[in-house]
């Protein structure tokens, strides 16, 4: 176990080359030798020089550069494209040695590097140098013309490095065919970095691989590298573990109803994909997002791959989205470019740099699918994913548009963009009754509730609106069909209103008739009653008259009229009891 503990103690000299220090766990082995191998144009010199310059600039370590192949003036001139300010560094902390052997020189017998190493040793002491680069050592070794002697000189350099304690970088050209001549060097040194240059479909791909690293853990895969204005950049495959910070903050989409459909807008730092057929207003939605962000004062970057910045501003103005004031104030950065070749690694490196320069909180890439045709190359698909991971790491909210005719196209899956997207909004055309209308659907939205309804997106001079889509007879109605349907509904309602009014009136008439009829009947009842009363009265008086007549008759006859009296009393009833009945 002690053995491993000692190995872990290898100290690292950071190269400052983005990504490289990540895959090697800190940089080059301190006080040891690293061999950088590669064919012509792979970036060996840039790699070595960058490690030296970054050591001087970032770690304040003086360094030396021994150039066997190019003149030091050429090297300084070439490096001026990287903005490292070499001349200033050369004065203070860097020493360049032109170690080219004059081709005119005559060789008679064997020679060695003793003199140069003596010189470098003295310089290193004077400068306090910590790092040294031997660039293009193969050129010098070639002059020795004897493998045994070459090996001897390499060992001399290695021993000298070990003795001085300098961190050494030796670059060496290798042909495309395996070159066994110098393979011993790979065994000799502590760290081997291989750079590879490959042309696929006419486009250049550069890769870096750490082949060997004594006493240290390292990522042994081939990583894409690109040359940017800051120098060489290695794209790491993102963090081993995805643990980006997440935010619960919501930011408006720029369209109030869409915010509502997403229950509050996009998540801060999320990745939004707006897909759709050509002309479905993908750019318009992106523009809405950008203006809303700018209006909040958030720095925003609008990257376009198919339209110039001025054209975008003009087109969005037609739907009353005005980007111009934000561009003028500098809050909004516009960057329009074209995709260049199948290697989009360089393109993403370029974008990364622009993102770092503008420091946006919101980013629009319109359309990301311009790159996706190139994404068939695995390296490029990786690059896209890594770029989006980078944005996520920076907490930048990004809206990508993607040209896509259907929802389940292979394109969406092969690029992997759809899986990276946190929120996916799909825009489509619905062709119906001779017209095309735009429909908006939220395919997915991680971590937010969202409406499952299709909405109609309408663009006009007044701006962008989302309208409910009507369902009728099992169909979604849009555009004129929706308008017609609405009109028809209104007419039908009016018809119903009128019809019900009429019915009410008719009923009122019937009711009135019934009431009237009731009145007639009542009156008739009263009339009958009256008639009956009249009849009763008439009958009563007649009886009385008869009775009185009988009284009169009896009195006249002086007879006993008892039975008749009883009969008369019954006939008169309870109305008037003749008092004479009681008297008996």
């Amino acid at each position, binding site marked *: 176990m002690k053995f491993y503990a000692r190995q872990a103690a290898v100290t690292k000299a950071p190269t400052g080359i983005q990504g490289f220090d990540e895959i090697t766990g800190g940089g080059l082995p301190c006080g040891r030798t690293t061999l950088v191998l590669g064919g012509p144009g792979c970036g060996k010199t840039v790699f070595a020089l960058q490690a030296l310059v970054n050591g001087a600039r970032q770690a304040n370590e003086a360094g030396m550069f021994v150039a066997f192949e190019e003149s030091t003036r050429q090297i300084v001139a070439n490096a001026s494209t990287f903005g490292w300010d070499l001349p200033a560094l050369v004065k203070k902390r860097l020493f360049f040695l032109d170690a080219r052997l*004059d081709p005119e*020189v*005559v060789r*008679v017998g064997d020679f060695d590097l003793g003199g140069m190493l003596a*010189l470098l040793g003295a*310089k290193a002491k004077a400068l306090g140098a910590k790092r040294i680069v031997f660039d293009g050592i193969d050129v010098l070794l070639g002059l020795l013309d004897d493998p045994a002697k070459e090996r001897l000189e390499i060992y001399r350099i290695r021993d000298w490095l070990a003795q001085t304690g300098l961190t050494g970088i030796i670059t060496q050209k290798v042909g495309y065919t395996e070159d066994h001549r110098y393979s011993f060097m790979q065994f000799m040194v502590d760290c081997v970095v291989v750079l590879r240059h490959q042309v696929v479909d006419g486009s250049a791909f550069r890769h870096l691989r750490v082949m060997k690293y004594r006493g240290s853990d390292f990522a042994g895969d081939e990583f894409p590298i690109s040359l940017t204005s800051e120098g060489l950049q290695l794209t790491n495959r993102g963090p081993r573990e995805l643990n980006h910070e997440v935010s619960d903050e919501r930011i408006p989409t720029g369209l109030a109803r869409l915010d509502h459909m997403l229950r509050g807008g996009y998540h801060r730092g999320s990745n939004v994909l707006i897909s759709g057929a050509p002309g479905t207003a993908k750019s318009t939605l992106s523009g809405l997002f950008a203006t809303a962000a700018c209006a909040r004062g958030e720095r925003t970057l609008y990257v376009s791959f198919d339209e110039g910045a001025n054209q975008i501003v003009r087109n969005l103005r037609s739907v009353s989205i005005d980007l111009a004031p934000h561009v003028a104030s500098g809050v909004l950065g516009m960057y329009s470019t074209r995709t260049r070749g199948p290697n989009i690694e360089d393109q993403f490196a370029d974008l990364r740099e622009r993102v770092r320069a503008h420091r946006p909180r919101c980013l629009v890439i319109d359309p990301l699918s311009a790159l996706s045709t190139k994404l068939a190359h695995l390296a490029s698909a990786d690059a896209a994913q890594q770029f989006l991971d980078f944005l996520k790491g920076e907490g930048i909210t990004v809206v990508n548009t993607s040209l896509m005719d259907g929802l389940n196209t292979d394109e969406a899956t092969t690029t992997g963009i759809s899986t990276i997207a946190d929120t996916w909004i799909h825009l489509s055309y619905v062709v119906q009754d001779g017209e095309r209308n735009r429909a908006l659907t939220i395919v997915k939205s991680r971590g937010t509730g969202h409406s499952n309804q299709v909405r109609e997106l309408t663009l006009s001079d007044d701006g962008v609106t989302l309208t409910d889509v009507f369902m009728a007879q099992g169909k979604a109605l849009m555009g004129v069909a929706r308008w017609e349907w609405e009109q028809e509904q209104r007419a039908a309602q009016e018809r119903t209103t009128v019809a019900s009014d009429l019915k009410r009136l008719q009923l009122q008439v019937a009711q009135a008739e019934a009431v009237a009829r009731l009145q007639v009947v009542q009156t008739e009842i009263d009339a009958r009653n009256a008639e009956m009363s009249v009849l009763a009265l008439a009958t009563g008086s007649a009886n009385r008259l008869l009775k009185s007549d009988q009284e009169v008759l009896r009195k006249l006859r002086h007879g006993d009229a008892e039975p008749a009296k009883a009969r008369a009393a019954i006939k008169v009833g309870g109305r008037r009891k003749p008092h004479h009945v009681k008297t008996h």
Partner: protein
Amino acid sequence: VADENLTMSKPTSVVPPEAHPAPIRLRLYVSGNAPNSVCAIANAKAICASHFESRCDLEIIDLVAHPLRAVADEIIVTPTLIKLLPLPVQRVVGNLSDTTQVLLALASA
């Protein structure tokens, strides 16, 4: 081995003095007592003695002792012999093991 100025006095040249009337100035850069350097010093001295007689001024500079001289004179490998005079300046690298080639190089141009 430190700086060493040697003036050879033995007149054993095969070249007639009339052909090379001008003096010859040579400077040899070596690194300590490395085998090639030791070899070159011996060879240089022998060539001067046998071919240039008293006209030859050979200066030997040890870069281990004076490393910064290498920067000024742009010396990368050792041993390096420079013919300063007569002009043009001519360089020969190596341990000077082949006398004929050394003489050819110094006489050329």
